[in-house]
């Protein structure tokens, strides 16, 4: 059995979890395995949606103690479920929560762990994973040697595929709740915005933005495209008040959106490492020799302060 740890947001299955589930279904079909989707929280309303993406079984841990996320609490719950169901594989989406809990579960189970995988297959019943290393400057094929295998899937890489199954739900025993650490509060910086690592469209600014206030231009374009704003290390380090959480690159976020628009970014090795997995890259830069043009699908040599508002206006005009 493959167990997929799934996350809900506002009663809906989160997209990165739907991606993990879809990939689990594909793997399970190739190896004659069952897929169970596991949900934990004060409420599991919305978890039925997992059946649409191929879950044969939906496991629900519903308890007041699970209202707030706890690394140790959730890890114990997940490890117990893997053992109780004799699952051989545990997948989670490579979200903040997935990457917090999955390695902890792996340690509890003595299982090998691969983070942020971009490809999965089964060989002799065991998982094999392809994953970026050195912030995407290289890719590794990995073999697990442990009986149980744990992996997180990189968001935006695996396609979401519907594969409806009959709805079968089971409750999991509720934990006692004497957790060692608990999330007390979510301090939202940008309400409703998705994280860079999960965004489908990213508009990023670099040193060519000249000052922090000019990022408003990128926000407008990102809004028109339904995307989010990122930044290069040069922009974050420039003292313009751009938070590090927005940084794309080797020492920031590694992203893989469908569309990445780099504005005033030269394309330093350490930035490219973080975004070269994007499906389509657009570069807007006034320097025709900027290295970013070597990896751009579409390049515009020009003034971003002229081009970006034109793009925004044109997109808005269409709506």
């Amino acid at each position, binding site marked *: 059995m493959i167990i997929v740890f799934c996350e809900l947001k506002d009663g809906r299955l989160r997209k990165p979890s739907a991606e993990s589930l879809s990939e689990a279904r594909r793997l399970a079909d190739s190896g004659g395995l069952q897929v169970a989707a596991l949900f934990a929280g004060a409420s599991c309303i919305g978890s039925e949606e997992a059946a649409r993406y191929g879950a044969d079984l939906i496991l629900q841990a519903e308890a007041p103690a699970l209202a707030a996320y706890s690394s140790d609490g959730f890890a114990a719950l997940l490890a117990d479920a893997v053992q109780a169901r004799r699952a051989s594989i545990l997948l989670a989406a490579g979200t903040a929560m997935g990457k917090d809990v999955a390695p902890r579960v792996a*340690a509890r189970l003595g299982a090998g762990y691969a983070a942020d995988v971009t490809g999965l297959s089964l060989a002799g019943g065991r998982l094999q994973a392809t994953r970026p290393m050195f912030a995407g400057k290289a890719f590794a094929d990995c073999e697990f040697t442990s009986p149980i295998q744990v992996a997180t899937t990189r968001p935006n890489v695996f396609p979401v595929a519907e594969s409806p199954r009959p709805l079968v739900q089971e409750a999991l025993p509720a934990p006692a709740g004497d957790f060692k650490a608990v999330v007390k509060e979510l301090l939202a910086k940008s309400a409703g915005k998705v994280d860079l690592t999960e965004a489908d469209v990213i508009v990023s600014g670099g040193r060519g933005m000249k000052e922090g206030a000019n990022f408003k231009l990128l926000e407008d374009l990102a809004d028109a495209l339904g995307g989010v704003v990122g930044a290069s290390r040069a922009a974050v380090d420039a003292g313009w008040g751009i938070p590090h959480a927005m940084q794309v690159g080797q020492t920031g976020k590694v992203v893989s959106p469908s569309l990445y628009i780099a504005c005033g970014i030269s394309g330093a090795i350490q930035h490219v490492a973080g975004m070269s997995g994007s499906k389509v890259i657009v570069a807007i830069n006034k320097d025709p020799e900027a290295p970013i043009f070597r990896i751009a699908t579409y390049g515009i040599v020009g003034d971003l302060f002229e081009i970006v508002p034109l793009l925004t206006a044109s997109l808005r005009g269409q709506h």
Partner: protein
Amino acid sequence: MKILVALKQVPDTETKIKVAADGKSLDATDVKWITSPYDEMAMEEALRIKESRGAEVVAISVGEDRTRELLRNALALGADAAVLIRSAEAGDPLAVARILADFARDKSFDLILLGHTGFGGDHGAVGPMLAELLGVAQAHVVTRLELGEDTFRAEREAEGGFERIEGSLPAVITAQRGLNEPRYPSLKGIIGAKKKPIEELEAGPIESTIRVSTLTLPPARPEGRKLEGSAAVQAESLIQLLRNEAKVI
């Protein structure tokens, strides 16, 4: 208070990655080795705690001969002791976590600090694994840390914002950029560190749970296209291409 800081030696972030002849590891020729940047922040946090409330800081690294240099630097920064554990298992985060846990167990550390990820392996897993193996609390990818008597409060990055975590000590805390600005060692520190010993241990037999079978460089992206014309024409053709050719908007 006793603090353990786990450090990893990694290739400089500007390194151009080359695959070794075995087809599965990094070609280490011409690689400049540095302390993983997030581990430097973990070290800095330990030093600040030492300065504000007093603490014994032990720096540890799982590595090889060249890793002594990293530990020498940790001593120069202000670590009270340094430990090198020799092992070839650096590619498997669970193996590394087990080696560190075997060392830390029974030594009553109140706090274990390390970077949230080490450049290279990129699993970001040793911290949570170590916390589990020691049966203690964790706060992973932390940008702010406050300590109480037996408790901690931490902020960590989460989707669309920050989470505030509260937990009990002992705990494993992994550092993210924003936690602090690491210092450079002082000349006095560098001279003093030369006289301090680095304890060297061999890791016990550890079975690896995952191994790299092949390492490859990503395929080169196909040649792109530069758009022509006035700004307005370029903007309009870009939107048409994104919509009709690339089909991403």
